[in-house]
């Protein structure tokens, strides 16, 4: 049993216990993995609305006349394309094209950007931002302690959140500022579930009341377990599983978020990988089992390749996952065999996303 003394708690910790959560260590935090059960929470998000405490995620604020130019230098996507009130997904690359993190960046004002980091990468990302900020007229601020973050996701998420906040929500991938209980709420039309919904960044002191208001309006608390199964069905990457410094964004299927012409750090290596010179020669593909079994991260693909994420899909009722496979095996429909703890299980390369919400 590992010590829990060094683990951090979000402002919602007591709320999680009150909601019956099973709390586990995750990326240095004590986080709820489930409340009533992964499957039930997952299906609540697919059919109605769920709320996730994602306050373990970090924030970096970049401010100044050269904020856009600076971010253009380190983020893989074309930062110039983000309008005020907009957002963009991008990758942070090393000079040799490895992935340091994957990030959403919100443009809050002409020269103010907020970038959301993965909990386990926040310190590394912040140091990277500060290192490359030299020579630019910008200030890079660690905003981690300024925000708690709640993700409200599902077909009913927007309607309920709008009622609770008394505020007309920004559209998908847009941001807006609401005032609730005299506090600023940054509302972003983003998420990690493949459902419609919003993410809310609020002062930590306000988070428990906002949580209570959402639950009172019928939103189901959902834990990290459901967050993981939902994101796998939607084929969203998890840093540390599907992305790492040892993998390039092209092999990871994130070429759409890389605009090498902007000259970002690592762009030469990414351009080389795109031109067919990927040092790894493998591509990340979604797959589904065609018979029994459940894949797990670390399982081998017979004949070459590795499963980096795997689970039982509550929506589809079968085993699903993401695997790096040789480029020759990456076509949709290619049969794969996954070695699940010594048992060979049949699978096939599937289209992305594995689960698509009905329109």
């Amino acid at each position, binding site marked *: 049993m590992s010590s829990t003394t060094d683990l951090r708690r979000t402002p919602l910790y007591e709320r999680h216990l009150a909601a019956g959560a099973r709390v586990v260590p995750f990326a240095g935090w004590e986080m709820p993995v489930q409340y009533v059960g*992964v*499957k039930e929470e997952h299906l609540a998000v697919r059919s109605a609305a769920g709320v996730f405490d994602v306050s373990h995620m970090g924030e970096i604020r970049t401010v100044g006349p050269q904020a856009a130019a600076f971010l253009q230098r380190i983020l893989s996507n074309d930062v110039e394309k983000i309008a005020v009130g907009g957002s963009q997904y991008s990758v942070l690359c090393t000079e040799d094209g490895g992935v340091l993190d994957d990030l959403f960046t919100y443009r809050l004002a002409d020269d103010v950007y907020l970038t959301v980091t993965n909990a386990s990468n926040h310190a590394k990302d912040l140091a990277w931002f500060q290192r490359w900020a030299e020579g630019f007229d910008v200030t890079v601020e660690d905003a981690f302690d300024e925000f708690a973050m709640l993700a409200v996701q599902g077909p009913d998420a927007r309607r309920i959140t709008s009622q609770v906040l008394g505020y007309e929500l920004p559209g998908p991938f847009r941001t807006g500022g609401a005032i609730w209980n005299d506090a600023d709420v940054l509302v972003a039309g983003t998420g990690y579930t493949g459902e419609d919904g919003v993410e809310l960044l609020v002062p930590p002191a306000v988070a428990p009341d906002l949580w209570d208001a959402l639950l009172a309006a019928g939103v189901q608390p959902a834990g990290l*377990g459901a967050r993981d*199964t939902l994101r796998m069905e939607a084929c969203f990457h998890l840093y540390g599983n599907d992305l790492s410094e040892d993998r390039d964004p092209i092999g990871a299927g994130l070429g759409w978020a890389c605009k090498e012409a902007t000259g970002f750090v690592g762009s030469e290596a990414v351009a080389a990988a795109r031109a067919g010179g990927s040092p790894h020669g493998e591509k990340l593909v979604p797959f589904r089992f065609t018979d*029994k*079994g459940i894949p797990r991260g670390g399982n081998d693909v017979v004949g070459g390749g590795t499963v980096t994420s795997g689970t*039982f899909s509550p929506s589809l009722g079968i085993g699903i996952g993401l695997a790096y496979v040789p480029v020759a095996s990456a076509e949709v429909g290619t049969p794969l065999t996954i070695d699940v703890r010594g048992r060979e299980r049949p699978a096939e390369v599937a289209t992305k996303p594995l689960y698509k919400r009905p329109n």
Partner: protein
Amino acid sequence: MADASYPEDLKYHPEHDWARIDGDVATFGITWFAQDALGEVVFFDAPEVGATVTKDESYAEVESVKAVSDVIAPLSGEVVEVNPALEDSPESINESSYEDGWMVKVRLSDPSQVDQLLDQAAYVASLD
């Protein structure tokens, strides 16, 4: 999910398995405590009929959405029946861990091993 319960007519293994003894055949399953720790079971990877199982060793796997766990044999013998309902309804392991959620029936190779198992009171005491 049912409330915690530990029937008095069963024998228990410290790894949270139960055995219902009927002559030289025993039915195996996992306890309420085990299914509660595991969460919603979505897959039971059963042994084949005819397989040999060894006391204290894994004979099957049970998976929840998040995790996989070995199922430990409380006694040694040969599998004579596998619960066919678990293929389509693995959730029975949660909902009815001592009845519908039984896993296998085993012809015991050494019925004297039963004496090494815990009775209900001793098993319940071990959970504290």
